[in-house]
Each structure stands twice: as structure tokens, then as C-alpha cells.
């Protein structure tokens, strides 16, 4: 099959890859670019474990074709911390035990970061609905929601 050459930006770095037309961006990130932080939990957009930012929009990378990322900005969990500095959300998830197995954690963090950038002062209900597309089977969501709310409060205070 004729592979297509794609030029894009991943976590701020110019990036190129070859992919088949039907390859999803998630497949490309994991198999071609070896960025395995984005997880495949369903491949149908129902679990959010593959959440990434595409040109500033939160999307499921399993529902985006690799070729669609031509010329766009892609941000994944691997780009969330800066140097040896964790993002405040990452730090808060650790401090408040907001993860158990950790498979859904990258998706939750990417989605929560997108929320706080759009709405620095969300209510519990707003957080729950924003994150409804991120499934977690371990935590019952309680500590995740608290971590996001507490982090938002810290960031507003800072």
C-alpha cells in the first residue's frame, strides 16, 4: 500500500512519518513514533485513554487518521511535564492517590489540562461532565475529581 508522508509537530518538536491512509493517529503515535503514553482501551472513542490535543482541541487519537495531522500541532502526555518539572495536575494526581492501575491516567491528565485551560474554576459537576469520556474502572472517579478541583484551586491561588 502507498504510504503517505506526513509532516507535523508533536509536543513542540517538528516530526515526520510515513503512514497508511487508514492508520489512526493513535497507531502512528504508538507504533511509528513510539510514543506509547497514549493508550488504546477501545479504539472506538468510548474510553478516552488515547486523549491528545490536536491543534488545541481535545480529541481521541483513535478517531483521527494519522494523515489528518498534516501541518497540525499534536500534544500528548509525553509533552505534559517540562524538563524534570511535573505539571501541577501530574503532581496533584500523585499526592492525592488519584490513580490505581494507571492505564487511564494519561488520558485523564490530558483531558483535565484542557479543561483547566478553558475553565480555571470548574464546579464538581463541570469536571465530571468534561471527564465523562475518560473511563476509569479502578478509582470510582472520586480522587480524580478531587485532584482536578484541588489543582484548579491551587493554580487560581498561584
Amino acid at each position, binding site marked *: 500500500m502507498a504510504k503517505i508522508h506526513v509532516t507535523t509537530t508533536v509536543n513542540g518538536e517538528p516530526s515526520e512519518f510515513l503512514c497508511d491512509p487508514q492508520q489512526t493517529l493513535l497507531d502512528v503515535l504508538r507504533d511509528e513514533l513510539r510514543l506509547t503514553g497514549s493508550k488504546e482501551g477501545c479504539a472506538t472513542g468510548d474510553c478516552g485513554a488515547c486523549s491528545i490535543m*490536536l491543534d488545541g*482541541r*481535545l*480529541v481521541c487519537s483513535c*478517531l483521527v*487518521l494519522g*494523515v489528518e495531522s498534516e501541518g497540525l500541532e499534536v500534544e500528548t502526555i509525553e509533552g505534559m511535564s517540562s524538563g524534570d518539572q511535573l505539571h501541577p495536575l501530574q503532581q496533584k494526581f500523585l499526592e492525592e492517590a488519584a490513580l490505581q492501575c494507571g492505564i487511564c491516567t494519561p488520558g485523564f491528565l490530558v483531558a483535565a489540562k484542557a479543561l483547566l485551560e478553558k475553565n480555571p474554576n470548574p464546579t464538581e459537576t463541570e469536571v465530571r461532565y468534561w471527564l465523562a469520556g475518560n473511563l476509569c474502572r479502578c478509582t470510582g472517579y472520586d480522587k480524580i475529581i478531587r485532584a482536578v478541583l484541588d489543582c484548579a484551586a491551587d493554580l487560581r491561588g498561584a
Partner: protein
Amino acid sequence: MSELNYKCPSTIDEATKLLATANSNAKILAGGTDLLVQLRMGMINPELIVDIKKIKETIEIKEFNGGYRVGAAVSGAELGEHEGMKNTWPGVVEALELIGSTQIQGRASLGGNLCNASPAADAVPAMIASDAMCTIVGSMGQRESRVEDIVIGPGQTTLQPDEMIVDFVFPERPPRSSDAYLRFIPRTEMDIAVVGAGVSLTLDESGVCTNAKVSLGAVAATQLVLEEGASVLIGSTLDDSALENLKSVASAACRPINDKRGTIEYRTKVAGVLAQRAAKIAKQRAEKV
């Protein structure tokens, strides 16, 4: 393994030419939230994917004769950020925004939701209730159509293989007009509608309903337009008895099926309840504008 190609035209003309030459082996990619799942599951096997998101007309929202033109590929997230549409057509905006998660909202579009032609599509009853029109372009030229004339059955539309929807036109509204869309799902998010109900209406100064349109989703092979539902509302002040009438005509109009998402009995009952509740919300909104 049939060879799949991907094209990303930047003009409508290019797009329709590609569709024409692919003679019905092409699929249009807008948000892709249905298309990619169908590809993955092997439900479809196209030779060409035409991504329309680089075409200016399909991704912009602009004012038009006091109303709005909304590009077919505009995402739910973008529509939800548009003050004008939110104030004038809150029902249409909330319907598109109900589809899937925040992540899905980053991609899902009015055009995709309509052309996927699912009986349970959330945005469609709301668009039908709003009397929305759509602009269709094909190799034979451009035509306009009412949204309610597009879907003719599950997965079937009146679009020709070489045609694409460019945008939707939501007309200017008289004062004291508004709309609302409600759906029922087992969870609070992430499900496909078991029943959907869209209501659009206009009130006069005395609060009497002068114009109304009611549409139901997921209770028949295609979205239903409830002429009778409109007539029980028009001339009333949407008092309890009018709303009770709406409830019964809505239930009476249903021709649903039993499937994994709901039973005939359940869908029939809840359709009436949702039509009634949606009408109440539309009324409250109309009183405020």
C-alpha cells in the same frame, strides 16, 4: 485489502470532482467519529476518503440574513463557543453538544451526524425542528434542501454519490422564539439516544404559541416530524393540558423497534415525556428572548 486513498481538497469544486470520479466508492470525512469506527470494524471498505476540513466553507460559521450559516464540518466544540448560535438556536447547539464526550465534541459535526443517517442521531431532530436548510453541491451544481428531506432510512440519504453538504442555514428568528432538544440515555453521558425530542416555538406578547415544530428521534426508521404535535401547541399558552396533549400525540406517533438500547414500549412512553419536557424548556427560553 482494497487500496485506500486519502485526499484533502481545499475547494468544493475539487472535492466534488474527487467524489464524482470515485463513483460511489468514496466516503466523506468530516469529524470522523462515525467513519473511523466503521472503517475499523470493517463495516465499510471505501477506495477513497475525502477530508473536507480544509475547505473554508465547511469549517466556518457566518451570519446570513439575520440567521447563520454553519459549515458542515464545524465541530460541536466550535459551535458551542459561538454566542450567536447559542442565543438563537440553543436547542440545535445543545443537541450537537450532547453527542459523545468532550473528545468527540472536538470532532463531531452537524454534517457528519446528518449524513451518517442514524435514526438516533441527536442533532437531526433539533435541526428538523428548527426548519434548517442545507446547501448541497455536486458535479451537477448546487441545490438547497430541507434537513428533514435528507434522511430516508437507516444509513440512507437523498444525497447523490458525487454530492456533499457544504453548510446548514438557520433562519433569522422572530422575538420570543427559542428551541430545545432532550434525549434519554441510560447513563448521563456516552450513550446513543434511546429517544430524542426537539421542539422549536414562537410566542406572542401574551404568551400564546404562534408557531411550533416538533421532531422525534430513535422512535422510527427516520426522524419523525410531529405535525399534530405542532398543532396542539399552536394557539395554546403551553399550559398543562396542551403539554399533556403533546405527550400523548408524541407517544402515539412512535413506530420504534426493540433493540439493545430500548424496547418499543419504553421508547413509546419516554418519547411523550421528553417531547413534553423539551417544549417546557423551549417555552421558558422563548419567554426570555
